[in-house]
């Protein structure tokens, strides 16, 4: 799968992308929402792993922009705010977010979601 990992914590974005590469995927990391949008405009990704809270423009806002541009990639949202997940349930559903993982997660949690999309 072609996967974009978006998280402003560079360490987390990088090790997650590295892990996905080690699992045989093509993965790249973007560290902010603007960069993520540029990446998606240039390339088609099968899956975007998107942090919910990002500086300047939030992850969900980026997903909204991507959907308006007819990007059809799967979306896996990651968040450290379980409360926000509940608050944004409706919006996440509207944006066709396929899965939400709460931080801290294990790589196995991510693998399980990715495998579901690969099938």
């Amino acid at each position, binding site marked *: 799968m072609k996967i974009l990992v978006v998280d402003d914590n560079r360490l987390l974005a990088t090790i997650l992308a590295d892990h996905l590469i080690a699992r045989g995927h093509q993965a790249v990391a973007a560290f902010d929402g603007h960069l993520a949008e540029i990446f998606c405009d240039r390339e088609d990704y099968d899956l975007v792993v998107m942090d919910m*809270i*990002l500086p300047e423009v939030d992850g969900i806002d980026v997903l909204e922009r991507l959907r308006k541009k007819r990007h059809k990639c799967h979306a896996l949202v990651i968040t450290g705010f379980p409360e926000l997940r509940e608050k944004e349930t409706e919006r996440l559903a509207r944006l066709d977010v396929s899965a939400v993982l709460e931080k*801290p997660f294990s*790589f*196995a949690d991510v693998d399980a979601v990715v495998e579901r999309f690969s099938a």
Partner: protein
Amino acid sequence: MIEQGGRIRYVHRINADGRISFVNDDWIAFATANGYRTSRAYQLGRALIDCIGDEETRHVYARLIERTCASSRAIRFVFRCDSPHSRRWMRMRMRHLRGSDEIEFASELLHEEPRATVALLRPPQASSTSERVLSMCSWCKSVLAERAWVEIEQAIIKLGLFSGNGMPRISHGICPGCKNRLLAGEGTS
């Protein structure tokens, strides 16, 4: 009355469910003096987290409560508690009460200075709009402060989290120590 060193202490406690289980008379008097129509009967049983206005502060308090439960040490920090007429600096002490499931929050006024009256201290907002970003490790809950990852109570002091106006936004990531542990555990380092 709970008073120490000549300062009045405003005390409230929460139970294991995070609900207010005790407020002292001074706490009620302080709230009333600040324009809140409240009573002990109204406060008891309320979820503390519901009394906190913004997501970031709720999140930090939730982490502090976890830390307090996990430790026998008290956590102390200075915070701002302004009124429309004055700037106020207060000190909080959080501690897990021995032999019970309760956590006690005891605050006292350190310094107060008058200011021109402002009608509304903070406009209602869905989430923080601060430009500042606080990096928190989702794995160990430490916080990046001045290039070092420290416990949240240290970060509150170092970064003056509760001493200024508004909380920074919180960005959850991973610290280098947890990265190493995670990679070692996953066998992919």
